[in-house]
């Protein structure tokens, strides 16, 4: 892409302010996901009675749609991102409530809403929106102690987590709790409070273990594999062993034919078997890079709401990848968690695109913010007065 520096259009401005490296890394993930969907999904599609490239076509379609959403959302200003988040959150909370009453029960859980033949999972869209809104509320709580922002944030979390629990979707609940607790920590919550929150999280997990039979059985099986068949996880592990460092070669894998979730939850294992640990490490590095790159922006971000938004979005993306990979390599108990951009699934793909779109938007280079920037951990350096802050800045300032 080429833009003149004199071009003042919104697109040109976006191009000069967006984090190019982060953008490219994300595009590589999307491209890799499309290629790798060719490895896993034809076998599953045939097994489920679709034509071989059914899931590949869907993957390509949703990738393109996702890219469009991501780019459009990344054009927004931080304030507009928050407004969008409020709207999306409101809509998806309504959706979540509707799911409870109208949702179709699949495998003992109501997660899907069927609208004109399309299945939509409201919780996927609620996640990024919730994170951004929560970040905003937590920042407000710090900035204006007179406003009841913190109780509001707690209430929002309780509502969202409650709606997830009644689905039930213990995996997503845990993911969101983890992200939310980390955001609380970053927002400057006193360490005593952080400890209390962590303890509450542990109690919640234990409660899930006690009251959800499938959680109980999964965790039991993980810690003592002899008590259950544990077969998906074990087969996945076998894929890593058989794949070795360089893999058996594209199309040579056998795991995809025996795993029902080869194209979604266990695509990482398919990649391992066919392309080897080296490819897996490459993917892992890519995910880690995206997360850490985004968190670096958060580190120097002066605006608390934006910073918390970045932290939340990056962690949601990162934890989701971590949990999925952890389950695949046998470090975590089985959990229905997709691998961003690699696993098949429309809602997940579009929601992740929305997440990264917001992330790209929040991490954009903002000259007014740069004015406030100082090297972290060195508050003694003199800072510029932020009075010249303005949206329209000269070219020279952008270059700094």
């Amino acid at each position, binding site marked *: 892409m080429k833009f003149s520096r004199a071009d003042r259009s919104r697109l040109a401005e976006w191009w000069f302010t967006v984090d190019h490296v982060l953008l490219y890394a994300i595009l590589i993930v999307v491209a890799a996901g499309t290629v790798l969907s060719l490895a896993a999904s034809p076998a599953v599609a045939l097994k489920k009675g679709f034509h071989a490239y059914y899931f590949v076509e869907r993957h390509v379609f949703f990738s393109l749609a996702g890219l469009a959403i991501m780019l459009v959302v990344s054009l927004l200003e931080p304030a507009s991102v928050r407004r969008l988040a409020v709207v999306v959150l409101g809509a998806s909370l309504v959706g979540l409530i509707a799911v409870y009453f109208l949702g179709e029960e699949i495998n003992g859980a109501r997660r899907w809403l069927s609208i004109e033949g399309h299945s939509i999972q409201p919780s996927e869209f609620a996640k990024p929106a919730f994170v951004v809104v929560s970040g905003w509320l937590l920042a407000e709580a710090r900035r204006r102690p007179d406003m009841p922002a913190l109780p509001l944030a707690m209430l929002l979390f309780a509502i969202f987590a409650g709606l997830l629990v009644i689905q039930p979707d213990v995996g997503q609940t845990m993911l969101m709790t983890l992200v939310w607790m*980390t955001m609380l920590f970053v927002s400057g919550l006193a360490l005593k409070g952080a400890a209390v929150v962590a303890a509450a999280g542990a109690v919640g997990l234990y409660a899930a273990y006690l009251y959800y039979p499938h959680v109980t059985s999964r965790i039991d099986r993980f810690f003592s594999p002899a008590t259950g068949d544990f077969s998906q996880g074990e087969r996945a592990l*076998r894929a890593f*062993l058989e794949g070795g460092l360089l893999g058996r070669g594209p199309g040579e894998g056998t795991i995809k034919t025996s795993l029902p979730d080869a194209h979604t939850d266990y695509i990482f294992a398919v990649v391992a078997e066919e392309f080897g640990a080296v490819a*897996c490490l490459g993917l892992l590095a890519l995910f880690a890079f995206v*997360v*850490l790159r985004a*968190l670096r922006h958060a580190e120097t971000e002066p605006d608390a709401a934006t910073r918390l938004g970045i932290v939340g979005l990056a*962690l949601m993306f990162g934890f989701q990848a971590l949990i999925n990979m952890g389950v695949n390599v*046998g470090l975590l108990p089985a959990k229905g968690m997709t691998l961003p951009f690699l696993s098949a699934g429309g809602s997940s793909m579009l929601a992740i695109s929305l997440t990264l779109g917001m992330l790209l938007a929040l991490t954009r280079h903002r000259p007014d913010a740069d004015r406030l920037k100082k090297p972290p951990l060195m508050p003694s350096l003199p800072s510029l007065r932020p009075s010249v802050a303005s949206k329209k800045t000269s070219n020279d300032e952008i270059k700094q």
Partner: protein
Amino acid sequence: MKGAARGGRQTRSPELARSRADILRGTGGLRTRLVMLGIAFLFGSIALQLARLATTGGLDMVATLTEPVARSYVRPDILDRGGRLLATDIEMPSLYADPFLVQSIDEVTERLGGVLPDLNEGELRRTLSDRNRRFIWLKRGMPPKVAQRVHDLGLPGLDFRTELRRAYPLERLAGHVLGSVNVDNRGISGIERAIDDTIGVEPSHGAASNAGTPVRLTLDLGVQHAVEDELLGAMTRFEAKGAAGLVMDIRTGEMLAASSLPGLDPSQPGEALAPERLDKIQGGTYELGSIFKILTVAMALEGGNTKLDTVLDVTKPLTAGRFTIKDLHSSGRPLTVSEVFIHSSNVGSGLLALAEGPDKQKAFLEKLGLMTPMRTDAGPVAPPQLPPRFGRVEQITVAYGHGMAVAPIQFAAATAAVLNGGTAVTPTYFRGRNDAATPGARLVSAETSNSLRVLLRRNVSEREGTGRRADVPGYRVGGKTGTAEMPGRGGYQEKSVVASFLAAFPMDAPQYLVLVLLFEPKGTAEADGEVLAGRNAAPTAGRVIARIAPLLGVKPDGDVAQLPAGTP
């Protein structure tokens, strides 16, 4: 919105706002950095696990996982006492099918049948029709040439996996001792089974890995071959239905050879089911006949009341209930114990047993281990079949080797103890298990053992000895013949016998025990129309000793001119 908020803050109190922002930013930055560290740690641990899994290769846990894991076991090589190879693992392609990928079942069945004619077509058709299965073995282990021909058919859905298969380069040689393995390379009989049970074998996934230290047997390939060769020759010459022979180190019990004919090919385990291929050394029990008199005389001498020159009245037949026992060729005069042995007098043996009484007879057999089941490294030995009680009849018949059936290896072990100076012997096939330096428990006195040596030698060296045809000049052979009528329909069959010869050499200080058995030999011209052991088993034993004595390094003595040409 954000700009507006910040503007408001600055107008209120710019300095205060900035310092608060600094603090917030400071702790926020620090905590964000902590979060980054945490995330990096988590990604790192997954990367570590990835690397660990990838470099572990096929570890044990895989074996317990799912169905189509091709698994075979890595076995150690088996060597003879001289380090020569008896059995080893080789990699062979195994053919499997993925029914899901097979395009035409008809084509596969038809064309594969052309290359592998022993494939069951109906079975193949049935398994290939099950499209839900993704892995079916079609043929485990095939020669690379055949595999290439199957490959060249170019049939989709068929593929090979390299597996370890057991190979026995000597085919049937020592087949009964070696035993065999199943399709997964696990030992199911003989020494192979013993390796699984005592040493243990490792599962493998295809490629050969370190098979561990080779197992060294006590067998000597040269001796084993000589024994099998001579037995085969004897079977032909005397038209016998079967033959068996063993060579044992008389002091340590190490087995140098053990052969049972018709032989067994270890690579075809199905052969073991044929009744005629039963292992006659330790798998079957037989009434061994007069060779049992070695034990009867030993028992009498141990009793203390009998000497070699004690005279027994053998002119009158022995009666026991409705049975009458008399000698085949009665000499018509009383005989000394020595003469009873050399003339193989049934009446004399009976008298010796009766003189000792049933308790002493039983106790003596018990002491020699003939009353209880035994086992060797090559597996369990068929348990002895004993008379229900030791009455007068049983005492007499057992004295000359009838009415009680034992496995030849169990009898050989008992006799070895009588001849080696009197100490117990446990037969073994594993080199180094039995230590020559620590002799077994004393079973008979040295004097008794010495007397028996003299008797056995005289039985071969004297002109009227039944074992004279077993003599080998220079090697001081001693031995005893046995011709036992085989039980059949309607009682014992006079012409259907087990002819045996138990020999040891050199008799002045015995080193090796040789036992030869011929099953149902015919009275061929070679045997002068007789089926007696002195005519067939004894000369066979002589020929075996003539071949193996030089191999075993036994020094010949006496008149060198006596030695046959070609003997070193």
